[in-house]
């Protein structure tokens, strides 16, 4: 029993830490730490720095330009990045479609798409959910009809994160409507510039444009963009989910946010004293901190099992549920900590180039919006209720 990193892992952490500390642009880190709005360019700038270092794809095999880091190393990397205030790597290319192409894609797809993911030439988005297919994803209706050497796609995807920036979308589409509904699904790669693709913004409760509807109207997709076999898309989608677990607990980011929460609580005042000295407030902060410690160790237990070659299992669902609980609790406490200065709604104040007068402390402006926005975390990526169903079925055998 040893809860500490090995000497090799510590050396690896130092390497990552010094790289992130020296290369992460300060303006970007500041935005992340202060919850300012990130532009597409900010993401790309950081991801290009990672590309140059050869660290764009921590989990890919070396032969495709990845780092082939084990689960613990990936965790260390993510934790160091999060701690320093690096933007989260946009996962759709490198962590989602990438591993699917590596496992099931054609040689052409590997040659063509993988390097473009590594170099950030293609920004990917994920075409899974539909208006009528959320938790019941397999009931999706977007159709792809084979006509000669191409597919013709009609339908609508929704909740498509950052589709407004995307060059490519990977889609689950229906290629057959007979048999079990899972069996008629295929995995298709679609160029967002194709004729007939329309992106419409969905504005969420905090007023931001993060997700979209993506419409397909007679969109022609070359047949070579089908991944693997027709009708096997559900299998690939499940494979993808099992690879999405990296960073799912968001321990590094939550530690960073906890630090920010304590900082805010030390700046704000209540009864003439720093808020953090109010026993009722402090008790709630401490409770979240202790919950985060428990999650951190549970996460390390899962990673250690992974490193020993035990198959990734449904315990990732535990990490998702607790990870998002904690993220939400932190955003809630932060918004509460600024008291009445949680009220002003000045979206421009958390974007670039805001020259207007601030209202309240600088850190206060985005906090309530962030609290609103983070309600999404227990819904996306398989809602926390779906995660409980997965655990009930696969771990508990109910």
């Amino acid at each position, binding site marked *: 029993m040893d809860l500490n990193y090995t000497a090799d892992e510590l050396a690896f952490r130092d390497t990552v830490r010094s790289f992130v500390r020296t290369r992460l642009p300060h303006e970007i880190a500041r935005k992340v730490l202060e919850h300012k709005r990130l532009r597409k360019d900010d993401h790309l700038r950081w991801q290009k720095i990672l590309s140059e270092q050869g660290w764009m794809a921590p989990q890919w095999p070396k032969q495709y330009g990845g780092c082939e880091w084990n689960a613990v190393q990936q965790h260390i990397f993510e934790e160091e990045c999060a701690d320093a205030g690096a933007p989260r790597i946009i996962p759709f290319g490198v962590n989602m479609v990438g591993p699917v192409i590596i496992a099931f894609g054609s040689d052409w797809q590997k040659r063509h798409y993988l390097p473009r993911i590594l170099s950030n030439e293609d920004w990917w988005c994920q075409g899974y959910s539909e208006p009528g297919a959320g938790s019941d994803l397999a009931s999706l209706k977007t159709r792809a009809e084979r006509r000669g050497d191409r597919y013709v796609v009609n339908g609508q995807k929704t909740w498509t994160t950052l589709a407004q920036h995307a060059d490519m979308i990977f889609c689950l589409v229906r290629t057959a409507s007979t048999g079990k509904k899972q069996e008629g699904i295929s995995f298709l790669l679609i160029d967002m510039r194709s004729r007939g693709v329309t992106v419409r913004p969905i504005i969420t409760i905090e007023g931001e444009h993060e997700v979209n509807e993506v419409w397909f109207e007679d969109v022609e997709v070359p047949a070579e963009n089908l991944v693997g076999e027709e009708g096997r898309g559900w299998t690939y989608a499940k494979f993808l989910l099992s690879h999405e677990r990296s960073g799912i607990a968001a321990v590094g980011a939550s530690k960073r946010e906890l630090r920010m929460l304590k900082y805010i609580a030390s700046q704000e005042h209540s009864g003439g004293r720093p808020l*953090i000295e109010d026993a009722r407030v402090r008790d709630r902060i401490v409770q979240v901190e202790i919950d985060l410690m428990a999650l951190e160790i549970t996460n390390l237990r899962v990673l250690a099992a992974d490193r020993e070659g035990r198959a990734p299992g449904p315990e990732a669902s535990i990490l998702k549920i607790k990870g998002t609980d904690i993220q939400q609790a932190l955003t809630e406490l932060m918004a509460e900590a600024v008291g009445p200065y949680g009220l002003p709604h000045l979206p421009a104040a958390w974007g670039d180039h805001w020259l207007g007068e601030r209202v309240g402390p600088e850190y206060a402006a985005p906090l309530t919006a962030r609290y609103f926005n983070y309600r999404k975390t227990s819904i996306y990526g398989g809602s926390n209720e779906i995660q409980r169903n997965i655990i009930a079925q696969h771990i508990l055998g109910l």
Partner: protein
Amino acid sequence: MDFNYSEEQLLLKDAVEKFLDKNYTFEQRKQIIASRDGISTTAWGGFASLGLLGVPIPQEFGGFGGGGVDVMVVMEALGRALVVEPYLPTVVLAGSTITLGGSAAQRQILLPRIADGSMKFAFAHTEPRARWELNRVHTTARQEGGMWVIDGQKSVVLHGGVADLLIVTARTSGAPDSPHGITLFFVNPAEQGVMGREYPTYDGMRAAEVTFDNVSVSPESMIGVLDNGYPLLDAVIDRGIAALCAEAVGCMSALHSATLEYLKTRQQFGVPIGRFQALQHRAVDMLIHCEQARSMALLAAVKVDSANAAERQRALSAAKDFIGRAGRFVGQQAIQLHGGMGMTDELNVGHYFKRLTAIDVTFGNGALHRERFWQAGEAPAEEPVRKPAKRWKQLV
């Protein structure tokens, strides 16, 4: 990083589980609780011959020389079997007090007797007005004619009635709530002036209210350094907390298995009730609490031996708070999911629930430990944003 038990630890786990499965069934436990002393000398002898009583005792004194994780292995198994014998006060609390603070002679004489099962101890610290405060000690010890004379009252002394020797905290100087001025003593309960009133606790164990009225003990009865008992007491109670966390994990995992079994077999509306999503999600939340509690018990087991007191206190308090909350949740859900059966004395479910409830209020509850956690290690808040390095422009 390695979360596996060593080969030795796996053997220990296997041995203690096998022993308890065979010799400590729920029915046997009931008889033990109903017996005059409320503990079984047969079981205690069995623990001794298995080597369990020497697990944390140094090898030179007939023990196994184990650390926090080895104790965790034993305590988890004791938790699963709801063992009522005084392992915690004897092996963990007294064993630690003597190992960490005892004189050479005290170690030489007493540690082997813990390991071989010939002596049982109780730890008399809590007082009526102290709740769980470690520093608040009103019981006094004064020197008189070369002896120490102890006066005061100790409350809820776990297993006080069966102890061959008590460890008593007493104030030798300072104000009643000062950490400085506390000293630990051995007191023989048969000594003139020691009076005890034994009673059952709701978890099937026993405790006692013990009063000391001009109790005279020899200078050799003092443990550690005069007036400086607090750090020792703090470290010993942390050992106790780590052990309790492991015991709670054993209780929780037993409850979760029992509940799962019940969900799969109990039929209503023509199907096993485990088919119902409302119940499935409760069972899942139980599992999550069990796993997270195990993580915290591991943290406690590893950090309890840490030389850094602040780090140790932080980890142990975090674990105690978390385990208390998790234990309450898992216990309550287990009863709810067992329905009416969960309310019966006949089923073991309620007994695990009661033990978990008792663990929560032993050595401080969550509120106390969250505050201790904060006091142990909060560095002053710094501005979390790094300032850009100043760049000087050369003008000429």
